[in-house]
């Protein structure tokens, strides 16, 4: 498997991986803000599944119809849809694309569910590897606490209840997340993860992330020739108080 850069794509892909509650989404958001401010053509992929795939996936989840194999395949379908419809055009057009989770999420999750690792990797073989992957490594207890302190209603598959690890969804989630963490660590060398200690302060982590990005990707190649014109008035966000840069 090759990266997008090695496959001669004009664009570059940066992925973040980590457990729920590791703070990876915050970090990729801050990375996006910085790249935008630098004038880089950046796109944050929000993983909008197409209607059809979403419909099948949510039916499967709601009715608990999914086995490890169909869980894996339907998520691969969803990924392929996003990849072909969404990521490839952006990477062909020369964008820096940021992904909150990539194929490694599937590798870890499906392997924990008992799918043969070689089979899962073979399925995702159509996708190029990220040019840069950050793995946010927080202590298991810290991640769990962030998620579980609010006593959220955990969904069946999210909690790994299909694995029959425990009848208690919270306990099941703990064991499940612990196993996923093991899988992440096991593949970190193979896939060149840049491991970020997610127990550090947000700013410290972001500093490391930005430094690595600027070292590894020649950002000047991805800058817009001229700043984008402001959007038409009717499309401008009405609330500006939350923006962290003062207006004017």
């Amino acid at each position: 498997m090759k990266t997008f850069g090695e496959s001669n794509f004009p664009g570059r892909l940066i992925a973040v991986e980590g457990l729920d509650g590791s703070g990876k989404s915050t970090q990729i958001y801050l990375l996006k803000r910085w790249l935008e401010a630098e004038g880089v053509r950046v796109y944050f992929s929000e993983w909008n599944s197409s209607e059809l795939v979403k419909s099948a996936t949510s039916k499967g989840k709601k009715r608990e119809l999914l086995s490890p194999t169909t869980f894996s395949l339907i998520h691969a379908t969803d990924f392929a849809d996003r990849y072909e419809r969404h990521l490839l055009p952006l990477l062909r057009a020369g964008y820096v694309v940021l992904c909150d989770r990539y194929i490694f999420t599937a590798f870890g999750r499906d392997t924990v569910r008992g799918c043969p690792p070689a089979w899962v990797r073979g399925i995702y073989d159509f996708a190029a590897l990220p040019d840069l992957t950050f793995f946010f490594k927080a202590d298991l207890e810290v991640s769990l606490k962030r998620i579980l302190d609010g006593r959220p209603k955990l969904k069946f598959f999210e909690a790994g209840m299909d694995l029959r690890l425990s009848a208690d969804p919270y306990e099941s989630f703990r064991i499940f997340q612990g196993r996923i963490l093991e899988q992440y660590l096991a593949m970190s060398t193979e896939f060149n993860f840049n491991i970020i200690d997610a127990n550090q302060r947000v700013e410290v982590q972001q500093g490391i992330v930005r430094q690595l990005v600027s070292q590894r990707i020649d950002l000047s190649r991805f800058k817009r020739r001229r700043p984008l014109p402001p959007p038409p008035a009717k499309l401008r966000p009405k609330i500006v108080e939350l923006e962290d840069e003062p207006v004017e």
Partner: protein
Amino acid sequence: MKKKKNNNHIIVPQPGPKKFYGQGIPGIKPEELVGSLIVVEGADGSGRSTQIARLVDWLETCGHATVQVGLKRSTLVSEELERAQEGNILSRTTLSLFYATDFADQLENIILPALKAGFIVLADRYIYTLMARDMARGMDEAWLRNVYGIAPVPDAVFYLSVEAEELVQRNLSKNATLDYWESGMDLGLSRDMFDSFLQYQTSMQNAFRQLQKTYGFNIVDGNRSVDAVTQELRKKITAVLAAK
């Protein structure tokens, strides 16, 4: 072995040991699969459905319990697949994996339980059609082989081979129109549906021939009469069920 011929005598099938093409399905042991899996492949108009209906009739009369499966019949995704086809909105890897999901759902919920219970499962198309379609669209055979490593190796696979020109005649006399997908219109081979149908069915036949090298199925001449094809299938299935 009973020597006496008796109309009530029912042959208990002795199929060979099962295996999967690849690593199979987590938690399923091949030796539990004591039933038989018989696959009939072929294009629309090759006489597949007719032959399967006749085989079911015959097998049940002989005392065997049967189950039928086909493509695009899963609870999980069949509805969405139908809609995806109507709109032709999914790209090729996505559609391919969507079909694989449909197959896996039926495999786990119908085929494997029936094989465990000792049924004869008749599959109206199997992984080979799915693979041939994708190969006709330029997808990698090795990638497809990995995806379908979940599939059990059938006890027998029959490919009803019918000339593309004959398929056109049969499809037109049945439906008065050619099907968009069976004509491979998504490939843009020709704006003319008739031309596209002939070209596409020819490339499907090439893909099947390519797959035949790996999977070694029986090619049955489907240009003959319905009865002649049934006779050949019965004879071959009888041999399969009687032990190999």
